């Protein structure tokens, strides 16, 4: 089973869980397991390095073909890894060089992000932020659909580019569309996680959907270190003893994945399409 992570930097539980307009997020909540995420006092100075220790390192270690976009990673990458840099997260340069060329050719200057978010004008238009983030998402969709991977991890940084204090529900609506577009392109052998990291006093968020996940609904009391063991557990990798946290589905029997829609349901849907045509 493959693992796909969309890390939405800077989102809050309130805005994610309480906005009914976020149709794809709602669908994800309905399909899987979700909740607030506490940080369980990992020692780190900023959120991206927390993610790094808690999630990226153990998964990269288990993976044969990771694709990391805007992820800062301390661990050494496997031979077939793809890494894409992002100015905003100060991640390492893109490698291999062939990928850099491919992205440059398709998207131009793809490693988007502000040098100094604090220097942004307060009235920076949302459109501009969306355009910049849109390119990141295009890069992510391109790599996710055109290249092989078993662990895909993309850090979205748009909210960092929105000056502090601005009301951003419209950006969430746009983000929801992007998450939806990912949900459309993944295959049925993928564990899908949308996450935002806890930071300071702010809780993080996780939304997890996997065809074999035995749990669904809201999960209270999850902590960041639990996420990596949960993903490893669901994907069938062994969980190294050295990592902290515990799988949220530990000891539970994995569900047998059922088809998204049964054959008879599809037939029904197709027949329904003619209802009321008048000519028949």
């Amino acid at each position, binding site marked *: 089973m493959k693992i796909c992570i969309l890390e939405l930097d800077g989102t809050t539980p309130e805005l994610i869980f309480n906005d009914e307009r976020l*149709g794809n997020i709602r669908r994800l909540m*309905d399909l899987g397991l979700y909740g607030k995420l506490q940080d369980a006092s990992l020692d780190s100075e900023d959120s991206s390095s927390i993610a790094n220790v808690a999630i990226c390192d153990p998964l990269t270690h288990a993976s044969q073909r990771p694709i990391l976009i805007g992820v800062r990673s301390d661990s050494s990458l496997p031979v077939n890894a793809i890494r894409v840099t992002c100015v905003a997260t100060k991640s390492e340069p893109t490698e291999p060089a062939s990928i850099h060329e491919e992205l440059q050719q398709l998207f131009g200057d793809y490693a988007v992000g502000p040098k100094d978010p604090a220097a942004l004008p307060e009235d920076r238009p949302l459109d501009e932020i969306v355009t910049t983030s849109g390119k990141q998402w295009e890069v992510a969709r391109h790599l996710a659909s055109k290249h092989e991977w078993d662990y895909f991890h993309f850090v979205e940084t748009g909210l960092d580019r929105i000056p502090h204090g601005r009301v951003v529900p419209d950006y969430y609506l746009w983000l929801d569309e992007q998450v939806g577009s990912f949900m459309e392109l993944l295959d*049925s052998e993928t564990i899908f996680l949308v996450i935002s990291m806890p930071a300071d006093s702010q809780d993080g968020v996780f939304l997890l959907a996997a065809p074999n996940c035995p749990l669904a609904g809201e999960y209270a009391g999850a902590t960041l270190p639990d996420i990596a063991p949960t993903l490893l557990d669901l994907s069938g990798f062994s969980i190294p003893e050295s990592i902290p946290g515990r799988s949220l589905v530990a000891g539970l029997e994995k569900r047998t994945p059922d088809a*998204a*829609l049964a054959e008879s349901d599809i037939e029904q849907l*197709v027949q329904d399409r003619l*209802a*009321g*045509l008048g000519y*028949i």
Partner: protein
Amino acid sequence: MGKKKVVVVGLDGLEPSIVESMLAHGDLPNLSRLRAMGSYTRMKTTYPAQTPVAWSSFATGVNPGGHGIFDFIRRDPETYLPDLALSRFERPKSMLAQPKVVSRRNGIAIWQHLTNAGIPSTVLRCPCTFPPDTLKGTMLAGVGVPDLRGGQGTGAFYTQDKTVAAQEHENLVPLEPGNDLKTYIVGPRNLRANPPGDFRVDIRVQKSGETLRIETGGSPAVVELRERCWSPWIRVKFKLSMLQSASGMVRFYVRRLSPVIEFYVSPVNFDPAAPVYPISSPPDYAKRLSEEIGLFATLGMAEDHNGLNNGRFDEADYLAQCNLVYEEREKMMDHELRRFSEGFFFVLFDTPDRLQHMLWRFRDPEHPGFHRDLPAELGEQVNALYRRCDETVGRVMERLDEDTLLIALSDHGFNSFRRSFHTNTWLWQNGLLALKDGRTPSTDLKENFIGVDWSKTYAYALGLGGIYLNMKGREREGILEEGTEADRVRNAITTGMQGLIDAAKAVPGIRSVSRREEIYSGAYAGESPDLLINFQPGYRVSWETAVGGFSHQLFEDNTRRWSGDHIIDPEAVPGILFMNRKAANGQAKITDLSPTILQFLNAPGGDKLEGKALLVA
């Protein structure tokens, strides 16, 4: 000189013979003026003469072989089952993905050529624009947009009469006795429930004197309706789960309050402000429009012919509902025309088509559904609607300037539908279709090719006039090889059906049969039916044939309220074409419009199309 503009007013199904007679009587003053300013001609339509096919050829400037829309209905060669031909249902890739609908219309539409040239378009309710194209400008999708149950329109009938049974394509909801009742609006199917059921919104209805008070469970929260009245749009929300909901809107109609309570709820339309699938381009355009002009029907076939066909309301109430749709469309047109300053404008009025389908029998004494005691003024309602269309064109003419090309057209004409033909029964009688276990054709086999022995079947009919050969490698259980064997079958059908006599009436019911290679060319020609029947006026393919069914008879009276139709020999049902410019001599075709419009707007692309620009240089 201002910017060049083209305004197209589509009047679906306006019949040339009626238009010409009304023009001669001075009944259509605005169209008459338009003819005097420019031109009027009959216009050749597509094979077959059907709304989605013809408007797709209008939009793309190519014959159906170039855009891939051949009928409302197609068959899946894997299952032989009927499916909607306007769009494709795509099964989801994973549990995360959603079922998707993809348009089957190919080719390049006028607005796509214009977008490439940087010229904006406003396209309102053109058939086969669901899901909507991306374009420079705005588009609101038309015929093809489903209701919340995924079909073309399923209403619900509520009654305290226990003897009433559900009719076609409707939900029947029985009501308890009493004057204060709790019931529900039937929403989308709930496939995940066991057994599968429907999502619902609870409502309460109370009879009080002459009115029915309805607590709608939506917005507005309460409506009070008298007998035989339609409510305004009511927005409702179906809770799909703890977290998700689907928005829709309905109109209520009260049929009677005594001796029993009976009412009807329209198909649940997408809410333009929160459609389940995008129905406009850009996606939030429908929402903005509804905020500006109020709610409007979003269902592709907005006129509720089904409720009338099932006898849930009568012709007068159907007319009232059609009027509501027409008014919404006119409001939409006026609103958009006011801000239209450049490029291409299209609006379609579907109502004439839908009204003629249902009211034709009142104007045809030879129709089996005609009775002397029927109110004669109903037939006159068709003329009244033509006059209204004329007024609509008049309103547009008031806004014209010298830089505007105005086109008013219909996609096909209209005729009576008195007798139906059971194509599959004919194929069986002629040894081209076999039934299992010694069965014979009857209405027990009314759909989905029940009882057909595919291993001995050479040809089968489904849809509105098409015949398919049972080809090896194409159909799941195909037996025919391309070549002499298939040609023998084609010949047997074309010669056997040519001029086929309806014995009971002693007149031919069929003119001819066209082979697809005679009428189609282009990248998608291979997806069309192999043969197409060209019926005589007065005839049409039967209701059963359309969905793969049979009857014991070959020809049969059409006794449904759906009594007019146009799916006959296209030569017999041309459309109309008015322009405020002189047209070149020669036969105008529906494929000529796209090059004409592109040429007028100086946009490239038109010269590569099949049709020719119609304006005199």
